[in-house]
Structures are given as C-alpha cells and as structure tokens.
C-alpha cells in the first residue's frame, strides 16, 4: 500500500490516517514491531519529524506503544483496533453517502445500486 498524500491537508494528519489504515489492514500486524521512524519517513518521502509527530499522536491514542529499550510496537488490544476499524469504516461510508447525495441518489436508490454492484462483484 503506497503512501498517498494530498496537498490540501496537514501532512501529519494524513500520515496518522494512513498508519491507522495499515494497522487495520494488517500490514502492521497487532503486537508487531514498527519500522524505525527514519525508514518510514524515507519510504513516505516525508520529513522524519513529521512522521515522528504522527507516530506520537498514535501513541497517545493507544494504537502504538513504546518499550524504551526495544522500540515501538502496534497495540495487542484487539478491541481497540476493531474500534479504529469501525471509525474508519464509518468515515468512509459517510463520505460515500455524501457524494451519492450530491449526485441526487436517495437512500433506497443507493442501497439498490450497492446490492447490484455487490452481486456483480460476486460473479
């Protein structure tokens, strides 16, 4: 999963969101050790200090934790990750609904369109 940054919002916020996404997707599995900040910054081509800020924010929310001698780890708390997943899913869904409304779809139409798409995908 590449790092995608848009130019209109603060970089550290976008980094935070994408690390959350990567944790939920299991790219950084629960309980695993995170790569060093410098490496992550280099991979995303961002300033290490900005990456550090994003990671510090995630530590505050409990998704990451640091053991002084061995580094930074992803939380083992399954419930917490699930909560984040729910939150991200809701955010995405809300954005989707917003756009569909702007296109002039009402709820029934949206649901119909979704189930049709789901069926097509199954095939």
């Amino acid at each position, binding site marked *: 999963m590449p790092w995608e*940054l848009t*130019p*209109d*919002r*603060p*970089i*550290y*916020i976008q980094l935070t969101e994408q690390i959350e996404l990567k944790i939920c997707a299991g790219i950084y599995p629960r309980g695993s050790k995170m790569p060093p900040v*410098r490496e992550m*910054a*280099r991979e*995303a*081509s*961002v*300033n*290490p*200090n*900005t990456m*550090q800020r994003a990671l510090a924010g995630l530590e505050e929310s409990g998704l990451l934790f640091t053991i002084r001698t061995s580094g930074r780890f992803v939380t083992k708390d399954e419930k917490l990750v699930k909560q984040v997943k729910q939150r991200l899913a809701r955010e995405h869904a809300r954005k989707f609904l917003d756009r569909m409304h702007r296109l002039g779809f009402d709820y029934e139409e949206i649901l119909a369109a979704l189930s049709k798409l789901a069926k097509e995908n199954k095939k």
Partner: protein
Amino acid sequence: MSSAILECSNLTKTFGAVTAVDGVTLDIPCGSIVGLLGPNASGKSTFLKLCNKLLSPTSGEVRIAGYKPGMESKRLVSYLPERSYLNDWMKVCDIIDLFADFYPDFNKDKAGNMLQKLNIKRSDRLKTMSRGTKEKVQLILVMSREAQLYLLDEPIGGVDPAARDFILDVILANYDPAATIVLSTHLIADIERILEQVIFIKEGRIILNKTVDKIREESGKSVDALFREVFRC
C-alpha cells in the same frame, strides 16, 4: 548557547543600487528541514552565500551556532552552491580525497555507497559526466558530511523528476534529526513534504515564516498553492 543553529539580525546586502537581502532577521532552530522559498533573484542564493562568508554583508550579521562565519562555522556547515565547483580534470576519487582531507566529518563509505548506486566509479573523470550527474555527485559529497547545518542552494534545480526523487531520497536518508537543513528552491511541489518549516523570501525580505502543517491547517492549501498566490505576477 541558544538552540538556534542559524541566527541573523538585520542582515543586508546591496550590490550597487540593488538590494539583494534587505534587513533579514531570522532564527532557524536546531533539528529541522527548512525551505527557503522564493522566485528567481529573490535573494535566496545571496542569503546562503552570506552565511558561508562568500559574500561580505553590507550591514547586520549572521551567526552559526554562535560563531560569525569563519573557520569555526565552516567546520559545522556543509554547503551546496547553485553552481558546479568541481574541476573538470578531477577524477571522482580526487574530489573524495579532497573532502576527506579537509572535513573530519566526511564519511567516505557513505559517499562510496551512494556513488555506487548511481553506477559512478571512483576512476570516472568529471569531464565525462553530464551536468545532472555532476550535480548529483556534488550533492552526495555534501550530504556525506556529518555536519550540523546543511545549506543547500537549489538542490533540485534543473534535474528531471526521477533525479529529483533520487535527490530527495539522498537528503532524507542522510538527514540526522539533530542536524538542520536549509534548502532553497523555487520548485516547491516536489519538495514540500520533506519540509517542516518554510520561509518565503521576496525581494530580499522575509514575508512568511511558518511550519508546513500550520500553513495547510490555516489556509487549507498546499505551500505550493500558497506560494503561487503570494508570488503571482
């Protein structure tokens, strides 16, 4: 000692009737990557040359880690000028030798590794290299020093996008978070995400000095977009 690695107060430089740097007062803290942004001929190069004592100020002063530009500051500063300063007759190993001889903080292995990545051999002559390659060699030399302050004048000047990625990667890979990088450029979009703080300079004056995230938060715009707005012709 203050935590600022680079301080200047009321720094002014005039060339005849032209004022290139006009009363700049500025503190750049330790441990950040700062973009010095402005259109061509806005005074960026002049400012960096003043910091390196290649120009003598008309008035005001610069201090680097508390020192006036001179022997002490030259030890701490790694400077990339906007032009090529390499002798054409030299081989890569000659210039590496020169850096290693004079800069105790020059890391020969680091330079060797990066040159190898570009398929540049130690026996290659600079004469045979393209302008872009020479620029990269120069950047590699400058970034292979473990300096406290890097002053990079237009490091991504005339190079193609692939080379730009390489250069950004060289800067990030060698950046020690305790050190400070000040880099000047007019191509902001490519470089915005590695900057922490930006300084807009227009006609020799500082017109904005903020962190990138703050600019994005407050204006909802990228630094690049803001730059285009501020410097619209």
